[in-house]
């Protein structure tokens, strides 16, 4: 136990995010979750997407290090029921507002709607030759067992620390087929 009363995190990293660091973090998770399973695959997949999101969008850069790279924090905290994955990075207030709106929309989608949304984004990116499909966060929501939580702490007048958090339940990940999603379609 740490002074917070929680067990030490499964993964914790704070500092520059180079492209090469992200797969290293993925390998570390695989080593720390030795039992190979769909659960480990989900934790790994969500980690990869959240780290790439941080890598692509963080607006704080390490200076004076070997490589100038976006900086941030990633943590995976295990509890009795699952794994909470959290990233923190600096972003301007306007971008956070836009992200909140986007997340508010995709957080409310059913699994089927999310798949449809992801497919449409991917198809549009292909047809319009866009560099990204903007589907990473939709994938995180699809694989998680709760909506992505979004919060922020002001850093200065224009910038804030964006906190994104997702949760993967242990029992759901290993339940095959007939998988339930945390939102059901209504209407």
């Amino acid at each position, binding site marked *: 136990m740490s002074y917070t009363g929680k067990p030490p995190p499964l993964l914790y990293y704070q500092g520059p995010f180079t492209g090469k660091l992200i797969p290293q973090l993925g390998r570390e998770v695989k080593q720390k979750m030795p039992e190979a399973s769909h659960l480990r695959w989900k934790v790994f997949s969500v980690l*990869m997407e959240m780290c790439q999101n941080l890598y692509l969008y963080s607006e704080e850069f390490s200076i004076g290090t070997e490589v100038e790279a976006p900086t941030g924090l990633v943590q995976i905290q295990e509890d009795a029921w699952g794994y909470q994955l959290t990233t923190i990075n600096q972003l301007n207030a306007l971008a956070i507002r836009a992200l909140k709106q986007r997340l508010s929309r995709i957080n409310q989608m059913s699994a089927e709607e999310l798949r449809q949304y992801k*497919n449409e984004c*991917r198809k549009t990116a292909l047809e319009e030759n866009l560099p990204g499909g903007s589907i990473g966060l939709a994938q995180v929501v699809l694989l998680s067992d709760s909506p992505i939580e979004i919060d922020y702490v002001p850093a200065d007048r224009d910038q804030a620390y964006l906190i994104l958090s997702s949760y993967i339940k242990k029992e759901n990940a*290993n339940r095959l087929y007939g998988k339930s999603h945390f939102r059901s379609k209504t209407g």
Partner: protein
Amino acid sequence: MQTDFMENLILEARQDDFSTPAIRFNLEKGIFEMEGESFLENTFEFYAPVFEWLKEWKQKWQGTAVFNFKFTYFNSSSSKALLQIMAYIRDYAERGEPVAINWFYPDDNPDLLQEGEDFMETLNIPITFIPFEVEY
């Protein structure tokens, strides 16, 4: 088979800093395989020569083609590249050439099965789904 104007495309899987899939496009056998993990810093850079090869293939080639996709992981950026590859296969099929697409997925992973189903729905192409026991 008219193999004189094109060469097979063979790329070994890599798992160092990043993961790239094995690519075995064998013209003589008419079997085209992609297998492993796909996670890269610059997805386009890796897949650009694969796209170029398939663009030429879909225009010039004739005969039965069997595509086997056997992934254990790909990130969302790679999924866009896979959609592009399947779109080239669809173009080939639309010329009236016989094509089969097999999507192998780990038998404990419904999410990877769904990824294949999503490609099928997006491009309106037939895909056969085949589970396999994954060795972690």
